Each structure stands twice: as C-alpha cells, then as structure tokens.
C-alpha cells in the first residue's frame, strides 16, 4: 500500500488549527504583551511590578495549591482505599454514592457553601458549640487560607478519588488477597500493594487538580479576597480595576510557571516508567 503522509496531516489539521487559533495564539500573545513596554520595546518592568506588588500572593498561591493537593491526595487515598479494601458492603455503597456529589457542584457554589459553613457564625461553629466541643467565645472564622484549602479539597478530592478508585478496582483482586494471605493488614496492603500499582493514576489526578486550583477565581474571591490572596484574584483586579493587561499578563505567566511544575512532575514520572519498561 502506498503511504500517504499528507492524508494523516489533513485529518489532524482541523484539530491542530483549533488548538493554534484558540490556545497557542492567545498564549503567545499574552507572553509577548507581558514583555512589551509602552514604547513597544522589550521590558521586564511588568514582572518587576508584579513581583513588587504580588510576591506574597505568589507564595500564598503556591502554598495553597501544594497544601490542597497534598490534602486531596490523602482524602482520595483514604476514600478509594476504603472502597477497595473495606469489608462492609453497605458502608462502601453509601460512601460510593456520597463522595461524588461535589463533582456536580460548581466552584462558585462550593465557595458560597463554604462561606455559610465556615463563617464565625456559620454552621460548623454552631455544630461545635451545640456539641459542647468549643465555647461560643472560641468560635472563629475559617474564611481565610484554611477556607480556601477546605473548599478546594471538598471540590477536587472526589475527582481524584473517582480516578484512583477506578485504578484500584482494576488491580487483580488476587494481588490483594496474596498480600493479606502473607500477613499484611489492610493498611499495609493499601500502601504496599494497591497504591504503588495505582500511583500513576493518582499522580495524573493530582496534577490536573493542581492546575485546576491555580486557575480558580471564585473560591479565593469569595472566601479570602484580601491580601494575601491568590494570583487569580490579583489578575482579575489588575484587569477590572486598572485595565492593566501588561501586569496581568505577567501574573498569568507566573501562574503558568507554577502550573508547569505539575506538568514537569508528571512527565518525570512518565519518563521513569518508560525507563523501567
């Protein structure tokens, strides 16, 4: 059969064109504008200004997403682990039904739910006071960095759990039974047998969550809009209040660099897997 290299390219061309027009082009334009001065020449003044004004927020964003990612990982491992290794079918069925709910709730609604839940006079403190766990004077608002982390974990943990539970369910059941048969309790089976075999899926879920959280505006805007806050709030502020696209573009590139750490981590793991095989 004659090979027709152009036929393949022609088939991929519409998709490539869409990516180029709607993604690569605007991204390049944003990067170019971040380095373009008022006179049209090259400059780094927008980055200098962005660092001067928002270096704390940059660090704050990085810490928030790293802490949230770690917490999401822990929650996802706990839930997926129980769904895979638990021995109470009814509890597993209830958990399987419940944990997915936040998947269908938008970030903005999540943020609003968390505002009413975590405020000083919110539902959490009411429950704690009503349960006698804290005094009314001890009640405090969690609508700060903790609120953002809780909202992110609540919203993103089900997504990672969904992926992870699927990967764990795909592991040959006899692998689990073999470990238990040789004396491993369920926790050791989880961390010694099940998780190592599903870690790539966990990693993919966490990287996707990491990048998603970096781009969320509604949660930090509604829970903790005051400084220090996340870069997304700063970007929106530069554009909406000052029409300052140059600094906003510089902040976007800084976000992109943060996001690319996640991509680098993922690609490094993928390369290791290729080396092993």
């Amino acid at each position, binding site marked *: 059969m004659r090979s027709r290299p152009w036929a393949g390219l022609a088939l991929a061309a519409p998709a490539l064109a869409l990516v180029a027009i709607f993604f690569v082009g605007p991204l390049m334009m944003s990067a170019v504008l971040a380095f373009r001065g008022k006179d049209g020449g090259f400059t780094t003044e927008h980055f200098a200004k962005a660092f001067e004004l928002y270096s704390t927020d940059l660090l704050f964003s990085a810490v928030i997403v790293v802490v949230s990612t770690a917490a999401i990982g822990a929650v996802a491992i706990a839930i997926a682990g129980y769904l895979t290794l638990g021995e109470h079918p009814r509890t597993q069925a209830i958990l399987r039904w419940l944990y997915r709910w936040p998947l269908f709730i938008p970030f903005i609604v999540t943020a609003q739910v968390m505002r009413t839940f975590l405020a000083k006079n919110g539902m959490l403190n009411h429950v704690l006071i009503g349960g006698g766990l804290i005094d009314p004077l001890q009640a405090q608002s969690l609508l700060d960095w903790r609120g953002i982390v809780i909202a992110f974990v609540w919203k993103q943990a089900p997504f990672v759990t969904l992926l992870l539970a699927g990967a764990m369910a795909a592991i040959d059941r*006899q692998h689990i*039974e*073999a*470990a*238990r*048969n*040789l*004396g491993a309790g369920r926790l050791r089976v989880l961390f010694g047998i099940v998780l190592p*075999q599903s870690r790539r899926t966990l990693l993919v879920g966490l990287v996707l969550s990491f990048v998603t959280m970096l781009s969320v505006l509604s949660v930090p805007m509604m829970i903790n809009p005051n400084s220090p806050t996340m870069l997304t709030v700063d970007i929106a502020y530069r554009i909406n209040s000052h029409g300052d696209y140059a600094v906003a573009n510089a902040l976007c590139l800084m976000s992109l660099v943060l996001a690319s750490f996640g991509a680098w981590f993922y690609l490094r793991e993928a390369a290791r897997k290729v080396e092993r095989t």
Partner: protein
Amino acid sequence: MSPPSQATGSPYLHADAVSVSYGATRVLDRVSLTVARGELVALLGSSGCGKTTLLRAIAGFVTPTEGRIVVDGRDITRLPPEARGTAMMFQSYALWPHMNVAANIGYGLRMRGRPRDEIAKRVGEMLRLLQLDGYGERSIAALSGGQKQRVALGRALAVDPSVLLLDEPMSNLDYRVRLELRHELRALQQRVGITAVYVTHDREEALTLADRIAVIDAGRIAQLGTPDEVFHRPVSPFVAGFMGADNAIDVVHAGDGWSWPAGGAGTRARAHFRADRARLAPPGTDAGRGTLAIDGAVVQRVYLGTQYRYRVHAGADDFWVDDPERRDEGAAVRVLVPPDALLVFPAAA
C-alpha cells in the same frame, strides 16, 4: 523451614461440616475434610463445584456459614486471612509487578517483622531451592510462566506456612512445562514435608501429585481416597465419569456375566468403562467368558498418535474406544470390555 516429614495420619487440618453460601446459593454443603501433617490432598472437580471456595474458606477469604476449620488444634474459622498462617499460591500467581523477585519472595517475612539479613538469607534459600539463583533482582515482567510459578511458590514457602494452599497453579502453563513442574512440585512438597491442599480440575495432575484425592461435586465431597482407590474403585457414576470412565451403558446380569442390550431378565445396572480398557473386534467375534460385548458401528475416528480413538454408536448410546487398528467410519464393530474393566453401579430408579 519445617523438617521433612511424612504424612502421619493424625488430622492436622480439619474442615468440619463446612458450608458456604453466596446469597441463596449454597456453594459448599457440610463438607468435611481432614488432612494429615505433611500430606498433599487434591480437591478435584469441574468448574463451579466448590473446590476453590473450600480452599478460600481455609485461607480466610470466604467465611463459612456453618462448620469450623481447625489447623493444628487451633480454630481459625473466624480469623482474618492475615492471622491464619496459611499461604496460598494463586492461579494467576498474583506476583506484584512493582516489586522484584526477591521483594516478592521476602514480602511475607517483612510482614512478620523479620530482620533484613534474615529475610535476605531466607530469600536466597528459596531462590536456590527453586533453581532461581541470580534472579533475585529481576523484574516480574521479565520472567517466563514457569519462572513466575516458581517465584509464587517460593513466596508461599518462604513464610514456612502451616498449610500451603494451591489454587490451580499450573493451569496457565504450557503442557510440557506443566509436566515438568508437576514432578518438581511433588518432589519439593515431599522434601519440605509441608501440608498442602491442591485445587485442580485436571485428573492427571491430581493422580500424579496427591496423597489423597477429594472429588467434589455440587458442593459436596463425592469421594475421598487415595489416587488408586478413586481411580479404580469410584463410589458413584459421577466419580467414575470424572476419573475417565465416561463410557456408560445399561447392562443386565444374566448367567455368567454382564450383557448388552439390557432387555432380558436379570439384574439391571449401569456400567462405566474407560476408552483404553475396551477393544474393537470384527462383528460376531466370540466375547469370551464374562466379557461384555456391544455391537455397533464406527461413527467417528480421531487420531491420537500411537492409536486411534473411535466413537462407536450402539443402540441409543455412543462410546469412545481406543484401538491401534485403523478402521473406516461406518464399519460395523463389536466392542469388547473385559469384566475387570467394568465399573458397575445400581441402575437409576
């Protein structure tokens, strides 16, 4: 490692009237089985008969609805799998791909908190025992089927288990490898002196490996005995059929032996015989005293290498008979079955 020992006859493993149900379906029905120390008992049966369920109940992956399981005087019926001290070798081997050979073999010892040097020493012993010297650092993916089987066996033996449970461990291997490993496994089991329960649906494997065979049918033990007893003296038509005597025919006892067809006066019965114990002769050949003669016609011929296997149609029945002489399909023949080849059971009501 346990000192080599022979089966002593005293019950070491005792499954006492064990029943297992999945929902409304009763998979095991009051099964009782004793295994002596150092003995290898094969659970033989067709798919879905309950043999693997019994093994899994001993391992702790299935909880009996009735009965109890005792190992060396200790009731383990309600213990979780990790507290039983048994070791199971799985049909798929269930080797962990993220660990190398040595880590797989040493896993059970790590779970028991043994020191690292002791684990390394034991893993080395296992690798030598299973002729896998130099394979410790290999990835599981780099092993052949036979090597995986050895690693799985080494992993189970490394913890010096109270009972070794083997769930059709050779079903994924080539015939030649299977034959070789079958003998190796038997020799190893006898050398180590370990008590073992071996699940298989392969009659030949059970006969070769086991000290005793439990033939299981529909959740019950149909017969428990030595390979010789089960093979030559099956207690039921089912066991006879499962052990290869799958030619069955209605006969009548009149005069000095069994005869066919079973239309005349006398005691009626159902006779089973093996294809290789009968022979074909031309029609009208004198059967001789006590020999059952069945007249029929060849309807199918299969070449076996050293001889042919013929499907013979007689009356309403079909039989398989082995014979070295080549015959054409459609040829009239007389099937001759010597009296000592007949396994006779009471006729069905």
